């Protein structure tokens, strides 16, 4: 898959979400992958796991740091990106496409309403950069 950034929603923790019906596909933003640096290990949730919104359900590690991925929605994990186990650097190369992390069947798609759209996320990043 390859996502058009304009169609994505974002969290303050720099996850992105793409929806396909009741399925939410989740990854980390381009800003997040750059901050993290070269990804060397990804710990994925198990298919079938029940996840609450806000749960840390995956970990992405670069040489310098570990980053939790928090699920932006409540539901059940239906698919994980196994490809990342052998090629974790895919997250750096294609964060909005082949670097997706997991898919979740949402209990309540209304939870998505609290997320930022692409334009709002861009503003949010500007704020972060100005603070630095």
């Amino acid at each position, binding site marked *: 898959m390859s996502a058009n950034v304009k169609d994505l929603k974002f969290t303050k923790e720099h996850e992105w979400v793409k929806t396909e019906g009741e399925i939410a596909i989740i990854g980390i933003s381009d800003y997040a992958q750059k901050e993290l*640096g*070269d990804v*060397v*290990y990804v*710990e994925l949730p198990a298919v079938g796991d029940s996840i609450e919104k806000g749960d840390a359900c995956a*970990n992405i*590690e*670069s*040489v*310098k740091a*570990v980053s939790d991925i928090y699920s932006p929605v409540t539901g059940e994990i239906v698919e994980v990106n196994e490809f990342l186990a052998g090629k974790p650097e895919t997250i750096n190369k294609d964060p909005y496409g082949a670097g997706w992390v997991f898919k979740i069947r949402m209990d309540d798609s209304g939870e998505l309403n609290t997320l930022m759209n692409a334009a709002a996320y861009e503003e949010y990043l500007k704020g972060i950069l100005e603070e630095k």
Partner: protein
Amino acid sequence: MKKTKPNKAHHILNGKMIEFVGWELPVQYADSGLNEEHIAVRTAGGLFDVSHMGEVFFRGPQALDAVQYLTCNNAAKLVPGKIQYSGLMTENGCFVDDLLVHMINEKEYLLVVNAANTDKDFKHMKEKAGHFDVEIKNESDDYTQIAVQGPKAEQLLSQFTDTDLTAIKYYHFTFGKVRKLDCLISRTGYTGEDGFEIYFKADEKNSANLFLELAEKGKPLGIIPTGLGARDTLRLEASMPLYGNDIDDSHTVLEADLEWILKLKKGDFLGKEALEKQKEQGITRKRIGFEVTGKGIARHEYPVYVDGKQYGIVNSGTFAPFLKKAVGMTYLPLDKCQPGTEFEIGIRDRKVSARVVEMPFYKREK
């Protein structure tokens, strides 16, 4: 926050600045990043601003006696121009710090210590060696220190000096000019590669300019500015201990597996009695190197489990960028220290298997 004298150069070179033990230093540079910087040092070279390190001079008729009393290695073996890795000892034979002892002449020694410990070390030295006829002076603020590390370090530095660098052997130094600056040039480093460390007195402008010029001339050779992130992964990949992580004031020289810097026969020194006793009785734990054989990366302070029970913590741990595997150092019970022995590390909510391996993890080809 204190600034090293080359500080401005890091801003010009897009360094990502952080606070490290009170100093503003680059953790990495925006144009490269930790991984690229690490690999550059292994394959070509890297430039490090290490001006935060401490320089303490011992001058006087009893300079050697004072150094001998404070440290565990035998400084009497030094000759002018030679350097020794050693430990500044507590009375228990543990580390106040680890350091490099440079013999300048019979009445003058330079001790280079860790930035985080400089003030503590200096106080300790004055207190414990006050009865010797020696002047102990902390000149850290006067000195800029730049490290040029990697297989092409000599090629780069030789463009800046008339000093014959090929004549400086490993763990030796000489005095010479680098550009117009009077320098102490040593063949030492903290990366596991060949390379040099230069020490000089200069103002901010000249310090930054030399760093920038080294970066510029280094570029065609593949030598790039390198931050603290890669400094840590490089030293760990080369199995060099870091004070505060792998050695400290609660582990002895023997436990730290650094017996090669312990010379019990050299005469009296701080910690000798305790260490003699421990050597006689034997140690019960030892610093070892490990590889993570399960999935994940062991990091500083993750719990270490032996036979299912927590024994200690990961002292240092990272993903080693050149070897491309997760390695680290910890202390294990003596009967669990043989290479091949399996134990576990707590990585978040899982126990992941790890195996004791020989150190160094990485050794350069000579």
